[in-house]
């Protein structure tokens, strides 16, 4: 059975200009781990990419994954919605529990997992179709057929992704005609349209100019609380600006994980400190 889309229609819009609210922790959610990872090892063929990763990602918070290139942070991100399955010859050990379900378990339905765990990629990858079609695609494959319902979802999702006012008059235009930053926000809207609980972001701003980056960062701040966000970033300042929690990866191992402020001001591990001070990576 496919689920109908229950959408967050009642979330008030937060103004872009006044979005710097990271310091307020949503009280009720901090204690429940939304993603629980236990002893995760991951292999590409014979090469081990992740070593004994265990961490709890809390619901409603923004968690940043940082670390030097090739440290496994992207691989880790992609285990959470099992996108790594698409690569031949990968395997894993250990378990990942997403809101109570072991996602590598035998009964896991990948369709409903990915509906629950949305993803935004490093380079914006809109479908070569209209703006409307891009956002409506997710709800459509999950069973929403009603035209006006789809239009409603598209509008809400674009509003949440802070793109609606720029594109509302040209929803039928090709998504490829949008600017890079707009395309990335469209991809966020597309992910939001299936009403996920978790949003994975793989360096979502790395290909964008500073202005577009700022928009994406503001957007992350707005979405915080409603979605559990896990973001991979190369940019230390960005991690500091947008995240509540930070996990530092190095050579496939989780070196340190804690409150962002703590990690950045008084890291417990020498490796973390070296990386944050810019001594390697």
């Amino acid at each position, binding site marked *: 059975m496919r689920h109908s889309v229950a959408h967050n229609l009642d979330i008030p819009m937060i103004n872009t200009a006044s979005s710097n609210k990271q310091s307020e922790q949503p009280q009720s959610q901090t204690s429940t781990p939304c993603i629980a990872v236990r002893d995760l090892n991951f292999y590409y063929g014979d090469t081990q990419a992740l070593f004994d990763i265990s961490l709890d990602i809390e619901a409603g918070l923004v968690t940043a994954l940082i670390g030097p290139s090739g440290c496994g942070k992207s691989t880790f991100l992609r285990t959470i*919605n099992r*996108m790594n399955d*698409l690569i*031949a010859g990968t395997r894993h050990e250990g378990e990942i529990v997403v809101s109570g379900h072991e996602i590598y378990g035998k009964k896991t339905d*990948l*369709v*409903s*997992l*990915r*509906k629950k765990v*949305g*993803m935004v*990629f490093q*380079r914006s*990858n*809109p*479908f*070569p*179709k209209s703006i409307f079609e891009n956002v409506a*695609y*997710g709800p459509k*494959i*999950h069973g929403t057929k009603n035209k006006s319902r789809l239009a409603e979802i598209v509008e809400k999702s674009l509003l949440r992704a802070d793109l609606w006012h720029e594109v509302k008059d040209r929803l039928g235009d*090709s998504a*490829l*005609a949008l600017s890079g930053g707009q395309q990335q926000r469209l*991809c966020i809207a*597309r*992910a939001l349209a*299936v009403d996920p609980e978790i949003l994975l972001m793989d360096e979502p701003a790395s290909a964008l100019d500073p202005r577009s980056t700022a928009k994406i960062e503001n957007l992350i701040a707005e979405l915080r609380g409603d979605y559990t966000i896990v973001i991979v970033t190369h940019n230390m300042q960005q991690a500091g600006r947008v995240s509540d929690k930070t996990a530092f990866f190095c050579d496939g191992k989780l070196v340190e994980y804690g409150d962002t402020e703590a990690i950045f001001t008084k890291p417990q591990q020498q490796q973390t400190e070296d990386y944050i001070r810019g001594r390697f990576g």
Partner: protein
Amino acid sequence: MNSAAKSKGEIAFHLLGIAAVSIALLALCALLIDIISSGYSKVSLDFITSYPSRRPANAGIAAALVGSLYLMLLTACFSLPLGVGAAVYLEEYATENKFSKLIELNIANLAGVPSIIYGILGLQLFVRYANLERSLLAGAFTMSLLILPIIIIASREAIRRVPDSIRQAAFALGATRWEMIRDQVIPAAFPGIMTGCILAFSRAIGETAPLITLGALTYIAFLPDGLLSPFGALPIQAFNWISRPQAAFHDNAAGAIIILLTVLLSMNIIAVVLRGRFQKKFAT
């Protein structure tokens, strides 16, 4: 001194190249001019709507033209889904292993099998074993097998050009593999697939040898009235007229060839237009 000698050699080779190209282009011009000058007086509404006759002046290509168009449409119906399906299988489903390598090698080899061999295959398989006689259906099946490798190769190329990020995006939204293929890959690759397929269909419409082997009839005074009806085809009709001793029939052949080339030209124009649209799609 030395460099001057070198550039002389270069100029000579450049001229040689231009000469070689000119030979090819001259041949093309001679062919077209010869055919048009012999056949243009034949091309008329009468010629297109008349049936074969013993008298060259009365003979026309109605049955052959309609037969060719039916044959192409039917061939398209069979070969398009099969060919695109095979391309999708190889690009989206098959993992790299011995079996997919075998299929690939086999397709490459089939693309080089002479068309008359397909005619022999069709003759035994469809005309005799399947008892389809010398029907439109037998002809279309044979032509489908003949152009299948071309369609598969062209479709694979078009599918391969769809960026992987599109597939990832669809999967990440919870699309199944089939949904991803149906909604994203095939629509994005469609103009490219059609370009390749139209070129393949134009190959089918111009093929003569396999139809001769199948026994397509040259003297047909009626239009095909069903899938199992015997049929004529334009190239067969042209061949028949060429082989006659009377020169008047040769002009009929030229007329038939003009019509055949016109059909091919319009198909190619469609293919070029589609190719342009395809390139635009991923340009931004």
